[in-house]
């Protein structure tokens, strides 16, 4: 009886300790990069256990990234993707890994696939376009994941916008990425123009002008030298839209 009571007491003590640990883990969890099933599965077999165990995550992520370059040189799509995704999973807060993985997936891999199928002369243009688009979509998925893990890094969002523009020829999708980049705290000055240009080229000329004008009046005008380049672009849009003088942005004292 006493023996069973002791076992029960010890089991309860371990359980209570576990519950305390759970409470502490909830507080600590926010400081550790997220790692879900989606991130772990592609990393299996890449020898990254030590990185997941704790410590050395950055170092192992760097080593994995170096190994991925060997696969990149050999045009080994599966190995390259696996290793690059592993580096991203190990250090999900580094912009560098997400951005370059997205670039490799979206820009390089379609070319590898075309060469593997016999080269540009053998593969029809239609299939080539299909491959470019399918890999670009994969690249965009990587950028999306990267933006999520880095708290909406504007560099990653601008890269996504460029890919949507260049590879998918989808100006409106590109504009949506650029717009997200402008909404981040450290948005680069040129992201506003990129967004307005994509909307404009996507056929939404009036919306583009209205949005760009709003941004210039509310944000860009008050920054540094009042963003004269952006005002110049806005003047071009006003002329193209043949806006009456009263609907245009009032002439600035410093304007040429």
């Amino acid at each position, binding site marked *: 009886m006493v023996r069973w009571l002791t076992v029960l007491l010890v089991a309860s003590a371990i359980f209570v300790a576990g519950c*305390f640990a759970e409470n502490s883990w909830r507080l*600590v969890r926010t400081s550790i990069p997220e790692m879900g099933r989606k991130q772990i599965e592609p990393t299996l077999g890449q020898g990254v256990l030590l990185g997941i165990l704790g410590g050395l995550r950055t170092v192992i992520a760097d080593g994995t990234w170096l190994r991925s370059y060997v696969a990149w040189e050999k045009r080994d799509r599966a190995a390259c993707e696996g290793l690059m995704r592993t580096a991203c999973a190990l250090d999900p807060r580094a912009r560098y890994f997400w951005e370059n993985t997205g670039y490799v997936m979206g820009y390089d891999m379609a070319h590898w696939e075309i060469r593997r199928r016999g080269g540009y002369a053998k593969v029809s243009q239609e299939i080539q376009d299909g491959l470019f688009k399918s890999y670009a979509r994969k690249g965009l998925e990587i950028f999306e994941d990267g933006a999520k893990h880095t708290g909406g890094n504007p560099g990653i969002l601008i890269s996504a916008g460029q890919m949507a523009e260049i590879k998918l020829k989808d100006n409106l999708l590109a504009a949506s990425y650029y717009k997200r980049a402008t909404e981040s705290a450290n948005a680069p000055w040129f992201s506003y123009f990129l967004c307005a240009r994509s909307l404009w080229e996507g056929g939404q000329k009036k919306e583009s002008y209205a949005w760009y004008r709003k941004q210039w009046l509310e944000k860009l005008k008050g920054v540094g030298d009042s963003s004269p380049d952006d005002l110049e672009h806005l003047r071009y849009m006003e002329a193209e839209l043949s806006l009456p003088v009263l609907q245009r942005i009032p002439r600035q004292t410093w304007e040429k």
Partner: protein
Amino acid sequence: MRNLIKQSLRRTAWIARITFLEAIRQRFFAFLILLSAALVVSSVSFRFLDFGHGELKFVADFGFGGVFFFGSILTLVMTAQLFFAEIENRTALTLLAKPVSRWEFLAGKFTGVWAVLGIFIFTLTFILGLVMWGRHQELVALAEAAGRVPPDLSISGVAAYALLQWLRLGVIAAMVLAISSVARSFLFAIVVGAMAVLAGQLQWIAQETLLKDKDLGVVYQSFLWLITRVIPNLQQFNIGDALALDVSSVTNGAVWAASLSGCIYIIVLLVLAGLGFRRREI
């Protein structure tokens, strides 16, 4: 009563002192502390291998990783070795024949080992703190010259990390003692201890991946839920880079909660070790 406690504490401290002296003279300890110190000092030289992180993050991760890895090996081997050496050399028999209880013996062993681990952790963290502080000063000067925002470094965060790692190693030492108290051989204790450490370090992954999976059945999820409360979560002590380089990302009270959790684990595991050792034939 007070006198009895005082005498018991004196006997425990005496065993701890002997254990400490025995452990600190071990070549294995000297080898690992030198190896880890070399790794920590050389971390700055390896920074060219870094891609896209802050330079200090790389240095910190390199150093913390070394402390974590070699600290775990040292704890596993040293705790089991010191425990089994007493039994195999029959010194435990002599000791326990005197008015020394088995609880005092275990508590003394643990305290001695933990003190040596404290020297290991605090020496290495001090060296790492110096290396990081030196590089931080250079980076601040470079950033100021280039008009950029200098990187952050919290020395108190490095100290908090040292405390958490010391507690983590304490939990591992208590875990190995609990296993050793029932194990028949040194090798068995080491292997099972290493597996327990691995499970403790990886149990958060099980929480992240399996417990959130809605496809799993209720029975399996309940079993996993129970397992995650029984196996100590050792990952909760690994927030060194956040503490040193990005204190704002650490939730208020996280260090205290992790410390309290570590202390509770140590006490519970030592009680478990004591119960296992109570009936053991020596």
